[in-house]
């Protein structure tokens, strides 16, 4: 029966498949569907975006890339149209920028798939550790199977569950339905080793869930059957309707037995208020219903509500199937048919029996899509077949049988999955789906196939020696980076890219608009901490610090620059602060100094330890010590207390000079402040050694001739002389005291 399908058709050679993969896109651009290939250019790419700028002539263009896949195009008026306005247009490259789509479904999928991806990567690491320690870890494909099931469940859109008609769903939901269909198909053929013996039943399950995606119109077999059921439920004799028998035949062909039995039990012969004698007819209907509900099925278990008898052991199934087939044949040849006078019932039931006996003509007649015919063929004609046995040949024959000569991309992809043409599968998925699909499905493709693992994980010439797996993750991360709500997911995928992931993460972090956004900066710093990107973290702190400083937030600026550990900037900053506080004695300067004083107190001891800024702290201490002296004097404090305060001020003074941290241009004003200490009445506060340090400073100033450029008020010759005289007198006094 099925032999006539098996005709040899030449398959793609590996070389051709590789060429297809190599010529494919890295990052797919789907265009906005407005078509741009105006020229008769056969080589022109199919993906085009039309931007409606509405400007006269051919405007000048300037382009700039935003983060991720955003392209910012400046349309500037042509030179002869100078009176026209210019426009900046934003183009979101990739599939998300279609009208009516806001990308919410894509973002939901991105956020919900992340934990599963992370879990699988973590399992991979643990498994590697276990293997290294000589353990016997679980088969990898079992982990991938769990990952696959989790993702598949996640792909069911919450909004689509509440929609009764497929036509209600958005384009985004339809796309995720198609992605899920292909995902589940990949799981059957690339992941689930246990499913190999019972793959015909997996096809049945797949059709139940994903049949609608095959239909180009809104109708599908599932929808059709539900409609018939609703329409005929109120009829007294539904068997008089041709839809009743056609629907049942279609359902039986693709293995939806619960539908068939429900339909059969709706048969008018079951009614008690019969005028005619229909016992025999009813007996035949019931016999077929029993046969259908008892059909042996090669699968470990049945989903709730499904009919048939499951057998997981193939020989046992074969025995039961033969026995069941004999019963079907017996019923078909039974003499009771002669007593059935309802022609519609007779023909309808006979058709169902023909399906159960695997009559190819009938199967072909009651299925509409070639994939339904293929499923029916495996279920009723070759239930023992394994997945790899001429599947693609049979599928091609089914297509021809259904006169489906031109394939769409989705059908080509399904055929490639059937034929184990992984290169074609990859090339098609890159074109058909969002980068999410490629970044996640690599795990499925490589679950149990060493050849595919080599294909996807081998380093290639592209992008300077990265594998396809890494390329697809980078591409996905780039699309995540396009949106402020998803960029934070990108680091996880980038961390799984061993060669270029961290490089891209650095680029992404450095492009974030965080100078004005403290929360975003803190998030970015968290990412830097997790992935040990110290230099980038410091650059971020520097950005925020300088921005804060230049926009009047002095304290925040200092704190961020301290985090950046940028001594050069901190020194420059303290230099500016000091200049603003010490360059004069006006009220404004005093206020500035008071501000600095408050700032230094606020920042505490940690601030003191930071290089560059320590001068501010020391200067504050010195000024405070002087203030203390003046306060004590005003209160007529005793001599001892005054002397102690004087000595404290000297210590602060010397701290400003010992390590050379104070810029020379401030020395003179500090030395002038110190005159009071040098001329301390009754006691020498600075000893000879300490005085010499200050004298050397004055000498250095003279040598550098720095006072030429400084404030006239403070650096008149008399000021310098006054300091020198005070130092000389103190030196003399200190010698005498010694």
């Amino acid at each position, binding site marked *: 029966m099925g032999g006539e399908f098996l005709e040899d058709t030449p398959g793609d050679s590996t070389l051709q498949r590789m060429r297809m*993969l190599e*010529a494919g*896109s890295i990052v797919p*651009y789907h265009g906005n569907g407005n078509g*741009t290939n105006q020229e008769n250019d056969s080589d*022109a*790419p199919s*993906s085009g*975006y*039309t*931007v*409606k700028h509405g400007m006269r002539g*051919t405007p*000048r*263009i300037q*382009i*700039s*890339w*935003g*983060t*991720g896949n955003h*392209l*910012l*195009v*400046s*349309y*500037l*008026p042509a030179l002869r149209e100078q*009176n026209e306005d*210019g426009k*900046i*247009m*934003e183009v979101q490259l990739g599939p998300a*920028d279609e009208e009516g789509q806001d990308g919410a479904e894509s973002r939901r999928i991105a956020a919900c798939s992340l934990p599963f991806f992370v879990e699988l990567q973590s399992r991979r690491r643990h498994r590697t550790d276990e293997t290294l320690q000589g353990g016997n870890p679980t088969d990898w494909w079992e982990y991938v199977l769990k990952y696959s099931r989790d993702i598949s469940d996640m792909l069911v859109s919450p909004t689509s569950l509440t929609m009764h008609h497929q036509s209600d769903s958005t384009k985004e939901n339809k796309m995720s339905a198609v992605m899920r269909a292909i995902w589940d198909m990949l799981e059957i053929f690339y992941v689930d080793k246990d499913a190999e013996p019972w793959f015909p039943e997996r096809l049945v399950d797949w059709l139940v869930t994903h049949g609608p995606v095959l239909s180009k119109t809104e109708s599908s077999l599932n929808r059709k059957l539900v409609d018939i059921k609703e329409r005929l439920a109120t009829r007294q004799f539904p068997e008089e309707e041709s839809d009743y028998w056609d629907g049942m035949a279609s359902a039986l062909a693709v293995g939806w037995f619960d539908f068939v039995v429900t339909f059969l039990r709706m048969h008018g012969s079951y009614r008690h208020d019969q005028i005619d004698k229909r016992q025999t007819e009813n007996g035949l209907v019931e016999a077929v219903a029993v046969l259908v509900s008892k059909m042996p099925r090669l699968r470990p278990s049945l989903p709730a509500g499904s009919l048939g008898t499951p057998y997981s052991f193939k020989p046992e199934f074969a025995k039961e199937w033969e026995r069941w087939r004999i019963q079907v044949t017996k019923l078909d040849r039974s003499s009771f048919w002669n007593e059935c006078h309802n022609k519609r019932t007779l023909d309808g039931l006979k058709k169902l029996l023909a399906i159960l006996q695997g009559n190819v003509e009938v199967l072909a007649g009651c299925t509409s899509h070639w994939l339904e015919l293929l499923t029916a063929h495996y279920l009723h004609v070759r239930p023992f077949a394994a997945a790899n046995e001429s599947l693609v040949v049979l599928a091609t024959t089914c297509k021809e049988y259904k006169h489906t000569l031109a394939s769409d991309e989705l059908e080509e992809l399904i055929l490639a999955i059937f034929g184990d043409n992984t290169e074609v599968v990859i090339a098609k998925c890159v074109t058909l789906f969002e980068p999410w699909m490629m970044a996640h499905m690599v795990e499925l493709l490589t679950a149990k196939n060493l050849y595919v693992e080599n294909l996807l994980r081998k380093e290639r*010439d*592209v992008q*300077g*020696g990265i594998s396809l797996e890494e390329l697809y993750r*980078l591409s996905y991360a780039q699309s995540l980076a396009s949106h402020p709500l998803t960029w934070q997911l990108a680091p996880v995928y980038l961390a799984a890219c061993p060669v*270029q992931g*961290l*490089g*891209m993460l*650095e*680029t992404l972090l*450095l*492009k974030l*608009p965080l*100078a*004005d956004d403290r929360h975003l900066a803190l998030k970015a710093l968290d990412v830097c901490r997790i992935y040990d990107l110290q*230099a980038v973290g*410091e*650059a971020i702190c520097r950005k925020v610090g300088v*921005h804060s400083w*230049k926009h*009047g937030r002095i304290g925040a600026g200092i704190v961020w620059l301290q985090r950046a550990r940028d001594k050069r*900037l901190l020194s*420059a*900053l303290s230099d*500016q602060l000091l200049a603003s506080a010490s360059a004069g004695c006006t009220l404004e300067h005093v206020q500035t100094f008071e501000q600095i004083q408050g700032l230094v107190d606020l920042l505490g001891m940690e601030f003191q330890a930071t290089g560059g800024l320590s001068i501010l702290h020391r200067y504050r201490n010195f000024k405070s010590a002087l203030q203390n002296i003046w306060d004590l004097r005003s209160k007529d404090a005793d001599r001892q207390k005054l002397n102690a305060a004087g000595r404290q001020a000297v210590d602060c003074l010397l701290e400003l000079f010992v390590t050379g941290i104070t810029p020379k241009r401030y020395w003179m004003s500090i030395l002038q402040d110190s005159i009071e200490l040098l001329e301390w009445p009754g006691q020498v506060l600075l000893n000879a050694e300490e005085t010499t340090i200050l004298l050397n400073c004055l000498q250095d100033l003279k040598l550098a001739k720095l006072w030429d450029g400084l404030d006239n008020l403070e650096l008149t010759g008399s000021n310098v002389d006054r300091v020198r005289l005070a130092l000389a007198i103190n030196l003399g006094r200190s010698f005498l005291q010694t």
Partner: protein
Amino acid sequence: MGELIRLEAGVEHTCWNSSRTKLAAGMSDGSVHVHEPLKGTNSDFSCSSRWKAHEVAVLKIVWGPSEYGDLIACCSKDGTMSVWEEIEDAAKQDVWQLCARFTDIKAPVLDLQFGHCASGLKLVAAGADGHLRVYEATDVLELKRWQLQAEFANAADVREKLERVSCTDASISWRPVADAIQQQVFVVGFHTNSPQHSIAKVWEFGETHQRWHLVAELSSPEHDYGRINHVSWAPNIGRPYELIAVSSSNSLSIWSMDIPSGPGHRSAVKLLGYFTDHQPGEVVQAEWDMCGMTLASAGADGVVRLWQSNLKGRWEEKGRVVGA
């Protein structure tokens, strides 16, 4: 996809800051307009500041590295250039303040670009005399004082041939930042009437000899590269080689170059793609995406084309953006 900003008539040049949150536009009346969303909001872009930067038209405008705050440099039709930064003034208002005006330049400035190098902030300017001048900010916070670090000719004999050779435009592109710091390497191309000078060249600063030296010339005898309109150095997130795109009056060319390895070493360059797809052939600009995987080129034909390498390393057009 949609209109983001409407610019006033008379716009000459636009430039986005690194995080694409602010756009600066140089105007034909010498003013500069900055567009950004209202501070602290996600509102639409609007013109937040405008000021007269030059007496005549602003020809080019560029943003400085964000580590130095909001910083803009622009050059005008009179050949001078100026540097501006946004700060908070005494009245607690954000204002754009002049940092420096470079009026003593010997030849009109055709292009300028900031570089954030380990040694500090640099500003390289390409002059109409075919010379490159590299300025360095003497202070990391106060960007008022700039000193000329180096001046050198892009082609040795341009000055002698100045009578015959004239540079009408130039383009500079620094090697993008890696690990937050930019190396002192840039590529420059001049738009001249002399074919032998229309070669994009890569210059690197040798720390050992403290001078700029030529690292590579992006040329090959097989093709005519026309007059250079724009050069663009691709971000490198881990490739073992660099990528540079050169847009010219007749083609777009994509070059690979070994990573500069120090003074005295010429880097090997290789032409990866030569395209004349833009009609009538003039390519005005090309820009790389954030990871250097896709190149977008803008043609005088009003079309933006997107280029990618396939898995065999061959560069192909993969999409286009057409205005209508």
